[in-house]
Protein backbone atom coordinates (compact mmCIF):
# COMPACT_ATOMS: atom_id res chain seq x y z
CA UNK A 1 0.00 0.00 0.00
CA UNK A 2 2.79 2.34 1.08
CA UNK A 3 4.87 1.29 -2.00
CA UNK A 4 2.01 2.00 -4.36
CA UNK A 5 1.53 5.50 -2.87
CA UNK A 6 5.26 6.26 -3.15
CA UNK A 7 5.28 5.22 -6.82
CA UNK A 8 2.34 7.55 -7.55
CA UNK A 9 4.11 10.48 -5.85
CA UNK A 10 7.29 9.82 -7.82
CA UNK A 11 5.29 9.65 -11.10
CA UNK A 12 3.55 12.94 -10.29
CA UNK A 13 6.88 14.60 -9.55
CA UNK A 14 8.30 13.36 -12.85
CA UNK A 15 5.26 14.69 -14.71
CA UNK A 16 5.59 18.12 -13.07
CA UNK A 17 9.32 18.27 -13.86
CA UNK A 18 8.82 17.19 -17.48
CA UNK A 19 5.88 19.61 -17.84
CA UNK A 20 7.90 22.54 -16.53
CA UNK A 21 10.82 21.64 -18.76
CA UNK A 22 8.45 21.40 -21.73
CA UNK A 23 7.07 24.86 -20.96
CA UNK A 24 10.55 26.35 -20.65
CA UNK A 25 11.68 24.68 -23.87
CA UNK A 26 8.57 25.81 -25.78
CA UNK A 27 9.04 29.36 -24.57
CA UNK A 28 12.68 29.43 -25.59
CA UNK A 29 12.05 27.78 -28.94
CA UNK A 30 9.39 30.40 -29.78
CA UNK A 31 11.67 33.29 -28.77
CA UNK A 32 14.51 31.67 -30.65
CA UNK A 33 12.52 31.40 -33.88
CA UNK A 34 11.18 34.94 -33.63
CA UNK A 35 14.52 36.53 -32.90
CA UNK A 36 16.28 34.58 -35.64
CA UNK A 37 13.65 35.66 -38.16
CA UNK A 38 14.00 39.26 -37.04
CA UNK A 39 17.76 39.13 -37.21
CA UNK A 40 17.56 37.63 -40.69
CA UNK A 41 15.31 40.46 -41.77
CA UNK A 42 17.62 43.03 -40.19
CA UNK A 43 20.54 41.58 -42.08
CA UNK A 44 18.86 40.91 -45.40
CA UNK A 45 16.50 43.81 -45.79
CA UNK A 46 16.83 47.49 -46.26
CA UNK A 47 17.86 50.37 -44.08
CA UNK A 48 15.19 52.16 -42.08
CA UNK A 49 15.21 55.25 -44.31
CA UNK A 50 14.42 53.17 -47.41
CA UNK A 51 11.63 51.38 -45.56
CA UNK A 52 10.22 54.71 -44.34
CA UNK A 53 10.24 56.02 -47.93
CA UNK A 54 8.56 52.83 -49.07
CA UNK A 55 5.82 53.28 -46.45
CA UNK A 56 5.24 56.81 -47.72
CA UNK A 57 5.03 55.60 -51.33
CA UNK A 58 2.69 52.74 -50.44
CA UNK A 59 0.38 55.10 -48.56
CA UNK A 60 0.24 57.36 -51.60
CA UNK A 61 -0.32 54.43 -53.98
CA UNK A 62 -3.11 53.01 -51.83
CA UNK A 63 -4.77 56.41 -51.71
CA UNK A 64 -4.57 56.55 -55.53
CA UNK A 65 -6.09 53.08 -55.83
CA UNK A 66 -8.87 54.07 -53.43
CA UNK A 67 -9.68 57.08 -55.61
CA UNK A 68 -9.60 54.86 -58.71
CA UNK A 69 -12.08 52.43 -57.16
CA UNK A 70 -14.44 55.29 -56.24
CA UNK A 71 -14.29 56.63 -59.83
CA UNK A 72 -14.86 53.15 -61.30
CA UNK A 73 -17.80 52.50 -58.95
CA UNK A 74 -19.42 55.75 -60.11
CA UNK A 75 -18.77 54.90 -63.75
CA UNK A 76 -20.26 51.44 -63.36
CA UNK A 77 -23.33 52.83 -61.54
CA UNK A 78 -23.86 55.39 -64.32
CA UNK A 79 -23.69 52.70 -67.02
CA UNK A 80 -26.00 50.35 -65.07
CA UNK A 81 -28.55 53.09 -64.41
CA UNK A 82 -28.97 53.73 -68.14
CA UNK A 83 -29.11 50.01 -68.89
CA UNK A 84 -31.77 49.42 -66.21
CA UNK A 85 -33.84 52.21 -67.75
CA UNK A 86 -33.67 50.33 -71.04
CA UNK A 87 -31.12 52.58 -72.79
CA UNK A 88 -27.35 53.10 -73.01
CA UNK A 89 -25.19 55.92 -71.63
CA UNK A 90 -22.59 56.74 -74.25
CA UNK A 91 -21.53 59.81 -72.22
CA UNK A 92 -20.06 57.57 -69.52
CA UNK A 93 -17.95 55.89 -72.21
CA UNK A 94 -17.01 59.26 -73.74
CA UNK A 95 -15.73 60.44 -70.35
CA UNK A 96 -13.36 57.49 -70.12
CA UNK A 97 -12.34 58.02 -73.74
CA UNK A 98 -11.40 61.65 -72.98
CA UNK A 99 -9.34 60.57 -69.95
CA UNK A 100 -7.38 58.04 -72.01
CA UNK A 101 -6.78 60.60 -74.77
CA UNK A 102 -5.27 62.94 -72.20
CA UNK A 103 -3.13 60.12 -70.77
CA UNK A 104 -1.97 59.12 -74.27
CA UNK A 105 -1.18 62.74 -75.17
CA UNK A 106 -3.64 62.83 -78.07
CA UNK A 107 -5.62 65.95 -77.21
CA UNK A 108 -4.61 69.50 -76.19
CA UNK A 109 -4.87 70.08 -72.45
CA UNK A 110 -4.55 72.85 -69.92
CA UNK A 111 -4.26 73.10 -66.16
CA UNK A 112 -2.05 74.23 -63.27
CA UNK A 113 1.57 73.20 -63.10
CA UNK A 114 5.16 74.29 -63.51
CA UNK A 115 7.19 75.94 -66.21
CA UNK A 116 10.83 74.88 -66.02
CA UNK A 117 13.44 76.82 -68.00
CA UNK A 118 16.80 75.13 -68.52
CA UNK A 119 19.40 77.57 -69.88
CA UNK A 120 21.85 75.09 -71.33
CA UNK A 121 22.35 71.65 -72.81
CA UNK A 122 21.46 68.56 -70.82
CA UNK A 123 21.83 64.86 -71.56
CA UNK A 124 18.97 62.48 -72.43
CA UNK A 125 19.22 60.66 -69.09
CA UNK A 126 19.08 63.95 -67.20
CA UNK A 127 15.82 64.84 -68.91
CA UNK A 128 14.51 61.31 -68.32
CA UNK A 129 15.42 61.55 -64.63
CA UNK A 130 13.53 64.84 -64.35
CA UNK A 131 10.47 63.48 -66.19
CA UNK A 132 10.54 60.34 -64.06
CA UNK A 133 10.61 62.37 -60.82
CA UNK A 134 7.83 64.65 -62.03
CA UNK A 135 5.71 61.67 -63.16
CA UNK A 136 6.25 60.17 -59.74
CA UNK A 137 4.94 63.42 -58.25
CA UNK A 138 1.75 63.07 -60.31
CA UNK A 139 2.57 65.03 -63.51
CA UNK A 140 -0.22 64.48 -66.04
CA UNK A 141 1.11 66.14 -69.22
CA UNK A 142 4.49 67.33 -70.54
CA UNK A 143 5.72 69.46 -73.38
CA UNK A 144 9.34 70.33 -74.18
CA UNK A 145 10.00 73.23 -76.55
CA UNK A 146 6.64 72.61 -78.15
CA UNK A 147 6.83 68.81 -78.37
CA UNK A 148 4.43 66.70 -76.35
CA UNK A 149 6.12 63.97 -74.34
CA UNK A 150 4.54 60.76 -73.05
CA UNK A 151 6.30 57.85 -71.38
CA UNK A 152 7.11 56.07 -74.64
CA UNK A 153 8.44 59.16 -76.43
CA UNK A 154 12.03 58.31 -77.38
CA UNK A 155 14.51 60.83 -75.93
CA UNK A 156 18.07 60.55 -77.23
CA UNK A 157 21.13 62.80 -76.98
CA UNK A 158 22.67 63.86 -80.28
CA UNK A 159 25.71 65.98 -79.50
CA UNK A 160 24.57 69.14 -77.72
CA UNK A 161 20.92 68.68 -78.66
CA UNK A 162 18.17 66.27 -77.71
CA UNK A 163 16.03 64.25 -80.08
CA UNK A 164 12.45 64.16 -78.80
CA UNK A 165 10.54 61.59 -80.79
CA UNK A 166 13.00 62.08 -83.65
CA UNK A 167 12.83 65.90 -83.60
CA UNK A 168 15.76 67.99 -82.50
CA UNK A 169 15.52 70.49 -79.62
CA UNK A 170 18.30 72.71 -78.34
CA UNK A 171 18.87 74.99 -75.35
CA UNK A 172 17.25 76.96 -73.91
CA UNK A 173 14.77 74.25 -72.97
CA UNK A 174 11.25 75.06 -71.78
CA UNK A 175 9.52 72.19 -70.04
CA UNK A 176 5.80 72.65 -69.36
CA UNK A 177 4.34 70.29 -66.78
CA UNK A 178 0.68 70.00 -65.78
CA UNK A 179 -0.17 68.62 -62.35
CA UNK A 180 -0.53 69.69 -58.73
CA UNK A 181 2.13 72.42 -58.33
CA UNK A 182 2.46 71.62 -54.60
CA UNK A 183 3.45 68.04 -55.43
CA UNK A 184 5.50 68.87 -58.52
CA UNK A 185 7.65 71.58 -56.92
CA UNK A 186 9.79 69.33 -54.65
CA UNK A 187 10.41 66.92 -57.54
CA UNK A 188 11.40 69.80 -59.82
CA UNK A 189 13.65 71.29 -57.12
CA UNK A 190 15.42 67.96 -56.71
CA UNK A 191 16.07 67.65 -60.44
CA UNK A 192 17.18 71.28 -60.63
CA UNK A 193 19.65 70.82 -57.78
CA UNK A 194 21.51 68.15 -59.72
CA UNK A 195 21.49 70.20 -62.95
CA UNK A 196 22.32 73.58 -61.45
CA UNK A 197 25.99 72.77 -61.06
CA UNK A 198 26.24 73.11 -64.87
CA UNK A 199 23.19 74.95 -66.16
CA UNK A 200 20.80 77.57 -64.86
CA UNK A 201 17.34 76.22 -64.05
CA UNK A 202 14.34 78.46 -63.26
CA UNK A 203 11.11 76.99 -61.97
CA UNK A 204 7.88 78.97 -62.07
CA UNK A 205 4.48 77.91 -60.75
CA UNK A 206 1.59 78.61 -63.12
CA UNK A 207 -2.13 78.57 -62.43
CA UNK A 208 -2.87 77.59 -66.01
CA UNK A 209 -0.59 76.14 -68.66
CA UNK A 210 -1.82 75.17 -72.11
CA UNK A 211 -0.20 72.25 -73.93
CA UNK A 212 -1.55 72.28 -77.43
CA UNK A 213 0.77 69.80 -79.14
CA UNK A 214 -0.55 66.28 -79.55
CA UNK A 215 0.81 62.85 -80.36
CA UNK A 216 -0.52 60.56 -83.06
CA UNK A 217 -0.17 56.98 -81.85
CA UNK A 218 1.61 54.52 -84.13
CA UNK A 219 -0.40 51.44 -85.03
CA UNK A 220 1.10 48.19 -83.76
CA UNK A 221 2.96 46.21 -86.42
CA UNK A 222 4.36 43.35 -84.35
CA UNK A 223 2.05 43.25 -81.35
CA UNK A 224 -1.34 41.57 -81.40
CA UNK A 225 -4.10 41.90 -78.87
CA UNK A 226 -4.51 39.23 -76.23
CA UNK A 227 -2.14 37.14 -74.19
Amino acid at each position, binding site marked *: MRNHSADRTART*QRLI*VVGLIGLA*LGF*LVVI*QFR*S*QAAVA*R*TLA*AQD*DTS*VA*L*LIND*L*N*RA*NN*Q*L*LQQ*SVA*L*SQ*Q*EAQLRQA*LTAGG*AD*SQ*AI*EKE*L*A*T*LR*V*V*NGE*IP*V*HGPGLQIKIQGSIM*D*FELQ*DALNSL*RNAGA*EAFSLNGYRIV*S*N*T*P*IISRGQSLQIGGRSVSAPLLLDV*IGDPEQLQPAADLSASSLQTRVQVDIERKTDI*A*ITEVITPHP*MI*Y*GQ*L*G*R
Partner: protein
Amino acid sequence: MTVLASVSLATFLVTGLAATQFRSQPLPPSNRLARDEALRHSVNQLEDQNRALKTKVQTLQAGVKAGEDESASRSSAAQQVKTQLDDEKTVAGLTAVHGPGVTVLLHDGSDPNDPNDRSLGWTVHYQDMQDIVNLLWASGAEGIAVNGQRIVPTTAFHYAGVNILVNNGSRLSAPYTVTAVGDPLALANGLGDPDQLAELKSRSRIYGLGLSWVRSTRLSIPAFDATFLVKYAQPLG
Protein backbone atom coordinates in the same frame (compact mmCIF):
# COMPACT_ATOMS: atom_id res chain seq x y z
CA MET B 1 17.27 7.85 -11.67
CA THR B 2 14.76 8.62 -14.42
CA VAL B 3 13.93 12.01 -12.89
CA LEU B 4 17.63 12.81 -12.61
CA ALA B 5 18.21 11.85 -16.24
CA SER B 6 15.25 13.98 -17.36
CA VAL B 7 16.44 16.99 -15.39
CA SER B 8 20.00 16.62 -16.68
CA LEU B 9 18.87 16.38 -20.28
CA ALA B 10 16.48 19.29 -19.90
CA THR B 11 19.12 21.47 -18.21
CA PHE B 12 21.50 20.70 -21.05
CA LEU B 13 18.92 21.63 -23.66
CA VAL B 14 17.77 24.76 -21.86
CA THR B 15 21.33 25.96 -21.36
CA GLY B 16 22.17 25.25 -24.98
CA LEU B 17 19.14 27.10 -26.26
CA ALA B 18 19.68 29.98 -23.87
CA ALA B 19 23.23 30.29 -25.11
CA THR B 20 22.10 30.27 -28.75
CA GLN B 21 19.42 32.77 -27.90
CA PHE B 22 21.99 35.06 -26.30
CA ARG B 23 24.31 34.74 -29.31
CA SER B 24 21.55 35.56 -31.80
CA GLN B 25 20.75 38.91 -30.15
CA PRO B 26 22.04 41.74 -32.35
CA LEU B 27 24.95 43.62 -30.93
CA PRO B 28 23.78 47.15 -31.82
CA PRO B 29 21.17 49.10 -29.83
CA SER B 30 18.57 46.90 -28.15
CA ASN B 31 15.58 48.65 -29.74
CA ARG B 32 16.74 48.15 -33.32
CA LEU B 33 14.87 44.88 -33.72
CA ALA B 34 11.66 46.38 -32.41
CA ARG B 35 11.98 49.34 -34.79
CA ASP B 36 12.74 47.12 -37.77
CA GLU B 37 9.88 44.83 -36.86
CA ALA B 38 7.43 47.75 -36.60
CA LEU B 39 8.53 49.27 -39.92
CA ARG B 40 8.37 45.98 -41.77
CA HIS B 41 5.03 45.18 -40.21
CA SER B 42 3.72 48.48 -41.61
CA VAL B 43 5.07 47.61 -45.07
CA ASN B 44 3.40 44.17 -44.94
CA GLN B 45 0.09 45.70 -43.88
CA LEU B 46 0.23 48.37 -46.59
CA GLU B 47 1.17 45.80 -49.24
CA ASP B 48 -1.75 43.59 -48.17
CA GLN B 49 -4.03 46.63 -48.54
CA ASN B 50 -2.40 47.40 -51.89
CA ARG B 51 -3.13 43.91 -53.24
CA ALA B 52 -6.70 44.04 -51.96
CA LEU B 53 -7.27 47.45 -53.56
CA LYS B 54 -5.83 46.28 -56.88
CA THR B 55 -8.14 43.27 -56.83
CA LYS B 56 -11.06 45.60 -56.11
CA VAL B 57 -10.05 47.93 -58.97
CA GLN B 58 -9.78 44.97 -61.37
CA THR B 59 -13.21 43.67 -60.33
CA LEU B 60 -14.70 47.13 -60.87
CA GLN B 61 -12.93 47.42 -64.23
CA ALA B 62 -14.53 44.13 -65.30
CA GLY B 63 -17.92 45.49 -64.19
CA VAL B 64 -17.41 48.71 -66.15
CA LYS B 65 -16.33 46.76 -69.23
CA ALA B 66 -19.42 44.55 -68.99
CA GLY B 67 -21.56 47.70 -68.75
CA GLU B 68 -19.80 49.23 -71.76
CA ASP B 69 -20.19 46.05 -73.83
CA GLU B 70 -23.88 45.85 -73.02
CA SER B 71 -24.35 49.56 -73.79
CA ALA B 72 -22.58 49.10 -77.15
CA SER B 73 -24.88 46.20 -78.02
CA ARG B 74 -27.91 48.40 -77.42
CA SER B 75 -26.92 51.68 -79.06
CA SER B 76 -24.98 52.46 -82.23
CA ALA B 77 -23.77 55.75 -80.70
CA ALA B 78 -22.36 53.85 -77.71
CA GLN B 79 -20.87 51.24 -80.07
CA GLN B 80 -19.05 53.95 -82.02
CA VAL B 81 -17.54 55.50 -78.88
CA LYS B 82 -16.67 52.07 -77.50
CA THR B 83 -14.66 51.20 -80.64
CA GLN B 84 -12.59 54.36 -80.13
CA LEU B 85 -12.26 53.58 -76.43
CA ASP B 86 -10.90 50.10 -77.17
CA ASP B 87 -8.22 51.66 -79.43
CA GLU B 88 -7.21 54.09 -76.67
CA LYS B 89 -7.08 51.28 -74.13
CA THR B 90 -4.62 49.44 -76.37
CA VAL B 91 -2.41 52.54 -76.66
CA ALA B 92 -2.53 53.12 -72.90
CA GLY B 93 -1.53 49.54 -72.05
CA LEU B 94 -4.92 48.47 -70.69
CA THR B 95 -4.97 45.49 -73.06
CA ALA B 96 -2.66 42.47 -73.00
CA VAL B 97 -0.54 42.05 -76.13
CA HIS B 98 1.63 39.33 -77.59
CA GLY B 99 4.09 39.09 -80.44
CA PRO B 100 7.79 38.81 -81.24
CA GLY B 101 10.34 40.80 -79.27
CA VAL B 102 13.15 40.58 -76.76
CA THR B 103 13.52 39.59 -73.13
CA VAL B 104 16.16 41.47 -71.16
CA LEU B 105 17.50 39.79 -68.04
CA LEU B 106 19.12 41.80 -65.25
CA HIS B 107 20.51 40.73 -61.93
CA ASP B 108 22.76 42.13 -59.23
CA GLY B 109 26.49 41.43 -59.40
CA SER B 110 28.92 40.73 -56.58
CA ASP B 111 29.61 43.14 -53.76
CA PRO B 112 33.36 43.88 -54.00
CA ASN B 113 33.42 44.56 -50.22
CA ASP B 114 35.85 47.34 -50.94
CA PRO B 115 35.73 50.19 -48.40
CA ASN B 116 36.99 52.53 -51.16
CA ASP B 117 34.11 51.57 -53.47
CA ARG B 118 30.83 52.85 -52.12
CA SER B 119 29.24 53.21 -55.55
CA LEU B 120 26.84 50.25 -55.14
CA GLY B 121 27.65 49.67 -58.79
CA TRP B 122 27.04 45.94 -58.35
CA THR B 123 23.28 46.43 -57.79
CA VAL B 124 20.58 47.19 -60.35
CA HIS B 125 19.19 50.67 -59.69
CA TYR B 126 15.87 52.17 -60.72
CA GLN B 127 17.70 54.47 -63.15
CA ASP B 128 19.12 51.39 -64.93
CA MET B 129 15.59 50.14 -65.45
CA GLN B 130 14.53 53.58 -66.65
CA ASP B 131 17.42 53.64 -69.15
CA ILE B 132 16.65 50.16 -70.50
CA VAL B 133 12.95 50.93 -70.93
CA ASN B 134 13.73 54.25 -72.66
CA LEU B 135 16.17 52.53 -74.99
CA LEU B 136 13.57 49.88 -75.86
CA TRP B 137 10.99 52.59 -76.67
CA ALA B 138 13.59 54.36 -78.80
CA SER B 139 14.29 51.04 -80.57
CA GLY B 140 10.64 50.66 -81.56
CA ALA B 141 9.06 48.64 -78.73
CA GLU B 142 5.28 48.49 -78.96
CA GLY B 143 4.69 47.30 -75.41
CA ILE B 144 6.93 46.70 -72.40
CA ALA B 145 6.56 44.94 -69.04
CA VAL B 146 9.04 44.68 -66.16
CA ASN B 147 8.62 41.63 -63.90
CA GLY B 148 5.05 41.35 -65.15
CA GLN B 149 4.19 45.03 -64.58
CA ARG B 150 3.05 46.78 -67.75
CA ILE B 151 4.81 50.05 -68.49
CA VAL B 152 2.08 52.64 -69.08
CA PRO B 153 2.04 56.42 -69.66
CA THR B 154 1.96 57.13 -65.92
CA THR B 155 4.71 54.66 -64.98
CA ALA B 156 7.59 56.13 -63.01
CA PHE B 157 10.49 54.15 -61.62
CA HIS B 158 11.13 54.91 -58.00
CA TYR B 159 13.86 54.17 -55.50
CA ALA B 160 12.81 51.67 -52.84
CA GLY B 161 16.14 50.59 -51.32
CA VAL B 162 17.09 47.25 -52.83
CA ASN B 163 13.77 47.21 -54.74
CA ILE B 164 12.27 49.27 -57.55
CA LEU B 165 8.78 50.67 -57.13
CA VAL B 166 6.46 51.08 -60.14
CA ASN B 167 2.74 51.40 -60.90
CA ASN B 168 0.80 52.16 -57.73
CA GLY B 169 3.20 50.66 -55.23
CA SER B 170 4.29 47.45 -56.98
CA ARG B 171 7.65 46.53 -55.44
CA LEU B 172 9.94 44.75 -57.88
CA SER B 173 13.00 42.73 -56.86
CA ALA B 174 16.03 41.43 -58.72
CA PRO B 175 16.37 39.42 -60.87
CA TYR B 176 14.50 41.63 -63.32
CA THR B 177 12.93 40.50 -66.57
CA VAL B 178 12.06 43.19 -69.09
CA THR B 179 9.79 41.96 -71.86
CA ALA B 180 9.36 44.07 -74.98
CA VAL B 181 7.18 43.33 -78.00
CA GLY B 182 8.43 44.75 -81.27
CA ASP B 183 10.90 44.00 -84.07
CA PRO B 184 13.32 41.59 -82.33
CA LEU B 185 16.25 42.60 -84.53
CA ALA B 186 15.75 46.35 -84.04
CA LEU B 187 15.33 45.91 -80.28
CA ALA B 188 18.43 43.69 -80.01
CA ASN B 189 20.44 46.13 -82.15
CA GLY B 190 19.40 48.98 -79.88
CA LEU B 191 20.51 47.07 -76.79
CA GLY B 192 23.73 45.99 -78.47
CA ASP B 193 24.69 49.51 -79.58
CA PRO B 194 27.98 50.22 -77.71
CA ASP B 195 26.97 53.88 -77.30
CA GLN B 196 23.84 52.86 -75.37
CA LEU B 197 23.73 51.73 -71.74
CA ALA B 198 27.51 52.25 -71.68
CA GLU B 199 27.67 52.77 -67.91
CA LEU B 200 25.52 49.72 -67.15
CA LYS B 201 27.58 47.57 -69.51
CA SER B 202 30.76 48.77 -67.83
CA ARG B 203 29.36 47.83 -64.39
CA SER B 204 28.39 44.47 -65.82
CA ARG B 205 32.06 43.84 -66.67
CA ILE B 206 33.43 45.20 -63.38
CA TYR B 207 30.97 43.73 -60.87
CA GLY B 208 29.52 40.78 -62.74
CA LEU B 209 26.13 42.51 -62.83
CA GLY B 210 23.96 40.42 -65.13
CA LEU B 211 22.79 42.06 -68.36
CA SER B 212 21.71 39.87 -71.26
CA TRP B 213 18.90 39.63 -73.76
CA VAL B 214 17.34 37.05 -76.02
CA ARG B 215 15.16 37.43 -79.09
CA SER B 216 11.84 35.62 -79.14
CA THR B 217 9.24 34.86 -81.75
CA ARG B 218 6.39 35.08 -79.25
CA LEU B 219 6.20 37.01 -76.00
CA SER B 220 3.24 37.93 -73.88
CA ILE B 221 2.76 41.21 -72.03
CA PRO B 222 -0.03 41.64 -69.46
CA ALA B 223 -2.47 44.52 -69.31
CA PHE B 224 -1.98 47.29 -66.72
CA ASP B 225 -3.52 46.14 -63.43
CA ALA B 226 -5.14 49.47 -62.50
CA THR B 227 -6.65 52.47 -64.25
CA PHE B 228 -5.89 56.16 -64.82
CA LEU B 229 -7.15 59.22 -63.00
CA VAL B 230 -6.68 62.67 -64.47
CA LYS B 231 -7.33 65.54 -62.05
CA TYR B 232 -5.45 68.56 -63.35
CA ALA B 233 -4.98 68.27 -67.13
CA GLN B 234 -8.32 69.17 -68.67
CA PRO B 235 -9.14 68.95 -72.39
CA LEU B 236 -8.62 72.34 -74.02
CA GLY B 237 -11.62 73.98 -75.67
